[in-house]
C-alpha cells in the first residue's frame, strides 16, 4: 500500500497546479496596464508561422514603431526561408541599422507538419517544447530572473505557437514578471476560429479576430475589424 502516498501527493500537486493556473488565467475584461513613458522601449517577441501566417504577421509588424518595440525577437521554424526573408525585409526597411542587436533570431523545430500523424506529431512537438523551454524560459531565467524573454509575444498560428504559450506560462505560475501574449486570428477566418486559436484563447491576454462572427460569443474575443 506504500505507493498510495506518492499518488496522493502527486494528485494534490496537480490540484494545486490547476488552481494556480485558474488564478493566473487572464481575467475578463483585461486588467489595465500601468502607464509607460511614451519614449520608453518595450521588448517584443514575434512568432512567424510560415506561409499565410507569416505574411499577415508581416503586415501587422509593418505598422509598429520599431524604435518603441525594441529589441525584437523573431521566432520561426527551421528551414522557413520565407519567414527569414520577411524578417530581413522588415528590418532593413524599418529597423535602425546603427544600433546593433536590435533584433535576434530563434529557430525552432516545427511542432507539426501538415497532415502529420498523431504519434510523430507528439514526438516533434516535444522537441519543439524542449528547445523553446530552454530558450524562452530557462535561459532568460538564468541570465536575469526578474526579466522575462520579452514583455509581449505576438502569435497568429499555427500549432507551434501553442507550445510558446505553454512555455510562457511557467513564469505566470510561479508568480514572476511575465510575457503578455496577444493572438491575432487570420483574416481568412470569417465564421470560425482556427484550431490553434481555439487552443490558446483562454490563456492569452488579448485575442483579436478580424471578422465579427469569427469568435462566437466568447467574452474575451475582440474584433476591431480588418487588421491586415
Amino acid at each position, binding site marked *: 500500500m506504500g505507493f498510495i502516498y506518492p499518488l496522493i501527493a502527486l494528485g494534490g500537486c496537480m490540484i494545486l497546479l490547476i488552481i494556480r493556473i485558474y488564478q493566473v488565467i487572464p481575467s475578463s475584461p*483585461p486588467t*489595465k*496596464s*500601468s*502607464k*509607460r513613458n*511614451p519614449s520608453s522601449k*518595450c521588448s517584443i517577441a514575434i512568432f512567424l508561422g510560415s*506561409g*499565410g501566417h507569416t*505574411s*499577415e504577421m508581416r*503586415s*501587422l509588424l509593418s*505598422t*509598429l*514603431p520599431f524604435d*518603441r*518595440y525594441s529589441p525584437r525577437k523573431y521566432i520561426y521554424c527551421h528551414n522557413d526561408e520565407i519567414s527569414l526573408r520577411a524578417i530581413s525585409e522588415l528590418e532593413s526597411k524599418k529597423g535602425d541599422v546603427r544600433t546593433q542587436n536590435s533584433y535576434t533570431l530563434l529557430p525552432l523545430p516545427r511542432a507539426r507538419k501538415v497532415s502529420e500523424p498523431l504519434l510523430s506529431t507528439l514526438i516533434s512537438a516535444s522537441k519543439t517544447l524542449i528547445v523553446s523551454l530552454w530558450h524562452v524560459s530557462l535561459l532568460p531565467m538564468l541570465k536575469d530572473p526578474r526579466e522575462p524573454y520579452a*514583455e*509581449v509575444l*505576438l502569435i497568429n498560428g499555427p500549432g507551434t505557437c501553442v507550445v510558446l504559450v505553454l512555455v510562457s506560462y511557467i513564469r505566470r505560475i510561479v508568480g514572476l514578471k511575465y510575457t*503578455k501574449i*496577444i493572438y*491575432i486570428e*487570420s*483574416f*481568412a*477566418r*470569417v*465564421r*470560425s476560429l*482556427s484550431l490553434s486559436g481555439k487552443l490558446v484563447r483562454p490563456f492569452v*491576454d*488579448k485575442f*483579436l479576430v478580424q*471578422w465579427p462572427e469569427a469568435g462566437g460569443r466568447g467574452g474575451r474575443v*475582440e474584433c*476591431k*475589424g*480588418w*487588421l*491586415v
Partner: protein
Amino acid sequence: MSTLLVTVGSTLFPDLTDSFLSPSILALLELHRIRRLIIQYGRAELPLDHGLHIHLDGSGKGSVNVGGMRVELIGFTDDFEGLVRGSDWVVSHAGSGSILTTLRLNPPKPLLVVPNESLMDNHQAELADEMGEKGYLMVSKIEDLEHTLPKFLSIDKHDIRPFPQMDQNRFKNVLDEMMGFD
C-alpha cells in the same frame, strides 16, 4: 492585349489549373478577347494539357499558342504583385494573401475566386463568400466556370467596389494600449 491570370499561390489545386486548359474554356476566353493566359499552377503536377503538348522547362515554365491566344504556364513566382499588376483579370484560389494583393492594387483588378472544395477544413470558401457578398469579388465553383466566366469577363471595371486599404493605426493602437503606451 487582354491578359488573364489564373493563380493558386503555393497550393495544389489541379482541378482549377486543369480546367483552364480544357478546349471549352480556352475557346470561351478567346471569344472574350483574352490574348494572353497565364496559369500559375503551384504544386500541381502539370500538364494535364488536353493534347496541347506544352513543354515545361527545368524551372516549370512553358508556353504554347492556342489560336490567337498565348498560354503561359509557371509553377511559382517571386513577384506575385507584379504578375497581378500586369494582368487585366485574375482568377484565384481562395487564399487570403492572393485575394488581398489583388484587391489592394490601385485600381483593383477584377477578381473571380474559385474555392478549393477538396480542402478538409474549407474556411477559405467562407472568406470568398463573405467578400463576394460585399461586392469586392465574384465567386464560382469549378463546374460553373463556363457560366460565370462570361459574366466575369463582361464586368465594367469601374463598377468594382474598391477594397479599403490597410488601416495603419488599428493594430498599433491595440498593442500600444495593451502595453500602456496611450
